[in-house]
């Protein structure tokens, strides 16, 4: 039972971290131009 007390918050915390990371990406416009982002890697500068 003791390990659950540690593991479950860790699992939830990691999930939440992922969720917040996604929300942040979405808000900061990183999903606005997926095609462009994929192409820009090819530019020299």
């Amino acid at each position, binding site marked *: 039972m003791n390990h*659950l007390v540690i593991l479950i918050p860790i699992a*939830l915390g990691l999930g939440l971290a992922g969720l917040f990371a996604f929300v942040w990406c979405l808000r900061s416009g990183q999903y*606005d131009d997926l095609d462009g982002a994929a192409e820009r890697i090819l530019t020299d500068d």
Partner: protein
Amino acid sequence: MSCCSTTPLGKDCSSGDGLSKNTRSKADAVVSKQSAPAGCGCGCGAGASNGLEEEVRSLSTPLDNGEQQLVVVIPAMHCAGCISKIEKGLHALPQVVSARANLSTRRVTIVWDDRLGQGSDLRKTISELGFEHHLLGQADDGESHLEAQGRSLLLCLAVAGFASANIMLLSVSVWSGADHATTQLFHLLSGLIAVPAVAFAGRPFFASALSALRNGHLNMDVPISLAVLLSLAMGVFESMNGGHEAYFDACVTLLFFLLIGRTLDHHMRLKARGAVASLAKLTAPGALEVLDNGQTRYVASQDISEGMRLRVQAGERLPVDGVVMSGSTDVDRSLVTGESDPVSIAPGSDLEAGVLNLTGSIDLQATGTADTSFLAEIQRMMEAAEQGRGRYRRIADRMASIYAPAVHLLAFITFIGWLFVTGGDWKTSLYVAIAVLIITCPCALGLAVPVVHVVGASRLFREGILVRDGGALERMAEVDTAVFDKTGTLTKGEPRLDHCEGLQAEDLPALYALASRSSHPASKAVLQGLHDRFLDAGVLSQDGTGAGSVTALSAIKEVPGLGMEGIMGGKRVRLGRPSWVADIAVVKGDAPAMYAGSNASLMFACEGTRPAVLSTRDALRPDARASVAHLSRLGISNQILSGDRRDKVWTLGAELDISTVEGDLLPGEKLKHIEKLGADGRKTLMVGDGLNDAPALTAAHVSMAPASASEVGRMASDFVFLNGSLGAVPVAYEISKHTGRFVRQNFGLALLYNAIAVPLAMTGFVTPLIAAIAMSASSIVVVANSMRLWQVRVFKGSETAMQGDEDRIGARGLGSNLGPNLGRSLGLSGTATIASGGQADQQKVPA
């Protein structure tokens, strides 16, 4: 990766503006600088810059710090090379603060400072880079609303995904036999995650269900919302009271799956919109008013009143209807008639708003305001037609109207039945009834339609066809009559140099110089023709001069309505109307007979020499014949409706083997014809491109337009095909047919699943574990079945599409990768796959 410079893309743009303008400016350098007062005709003359500057300024949005933001649409932008070319080119201008290209929407957002330079230079720079472009008007509310909705759906999807993953983690331990205390704890934890998650991620469904109930009918969202809410409530109640029947996992997974379907559906609509919408505004934003003292001042379109005297330069569009007061010119009335052949205009002629002035500057008197113009009239016709179409009910809604009451009835019967059997144990009876509601799987049904539609749309995308929404696929599958417009639809709508007779090699530079100074479609056709035939052969060098010989062509001027004239070696040279050119040429024998028989539209001559006859022709679209024949084989009757002269339409009808042919039709008459077909019970597919087709496109059961169509034409259409081949029409029809078949199959699968699961649920055998497995399994089966749509075979054209390389590259890539990548693109990156496809195409081009 500078594919722009190596692909024929630049060349393609030139049919519009790009290259021809480049070469034109090069030709300018060779030819003496004495330009005609009419300017170069492309609207960049000094006289017109006032209006263009105003246009850029009026469409820019002022930012807080005094800078301006302008959004430019560049349809041909498709790769990293284009992006960096455009961004670098713009950054080189002093007034540009930032320029950021968005490849998904094909737009460039430019922040510029009007204190540091002119706005019209921005447009000039983009043109000089070889890109056709359009300014985007003030932000389209509908579109930004759709985008915001898409983002909120993604957010809901992310929350539902997080919740279902975590709850599933806890549920698996419960199923695998956790002891009582642990089960209790895990249920409580699940509840803590599920309640806020459902409250947040369920909103799209709850809102839609509520609005349906408020209007007194049922849609699919009603049973979905009910199942989600009831299972949540039951879970909370159970975990509070230490029970085992907690359906938290089923509840959030259901939401997650349904949100995937919803997000895909939304993405598809948004993408089609982004690519289809957004091009040039047809009405001029304003015009120069001629004041009594001869001065001019700029007035915005909405401020123009009847009787105002306006000056319209070459290259500009008319803002309102009007009568020509002075000046003569050629105009492009293709908006009204659909015909691209220019018409000469003299004082006294009536012109409609939106007509493009090609060669000379004219003064006209406004006969109406922007609200009473021809364009406004078209708008009204379209709105009326749109309302008629709104009555169509999509298959999912029709299913829901049967399904929802059936499910509720079943649950109710179960409840009553169990009450009766257990002798009044309402708690058990309620549990079983809720289990029925949950397991009847709105999940498979909710996915059955959107997944097939998305796969169908992606498949169409691979074939170079954009579709506006799933409803269009359903309507397309019902079509029994196809109605085509002529110019621009069955034909390419741009004249090409077909045949030249008597042309001497030493004349070429002069001809080139004359043609390059005019924006008249015939001149463009000649220029393009010379390019294709002689440039590669080395007869003509890149800058338009003859190999070795230096031509001194001076005093080039455009004579409105007649053609181009210049002086070479003291002699006049002319390119234009045959009778006018024949005046200076030596014509042996019977002059009229020489060009009466042929379809000569142009002649070219040096004073005192024999004239050369140049004929232009509007070629059929690739695959036009095969497509029409294929449609007839599929049992669809074909018709042609055109605004062109009757005899021309008949000839084309005979050529394509279409017997029902109508010519000389005005926009309103086309609309009537379509409405009459509809009244006769026919399901019509209208294929057209022009503004004059727009009301008919809106009124037809389903409609289709080429990418080269006018903006209004494209906006009015359900399908837009990008690759220029008319083969897109049978392809769209066949894929729609298959899509309909797969939708029905999916419904069949969902019903089969229900036929097994519902009796289990009604008899009380369902546990949360069984529910979770059954629901996921049914969803996977439905999605897997939809994927088979990638494999179906459709019409393949034999001719290659010559036109629209730029579109083809983007479009082909998108679809081909969407299939395998669907998992990746689910909601999150529906567009990410364009890029890799684009690269694949680029790699074929030798660097």
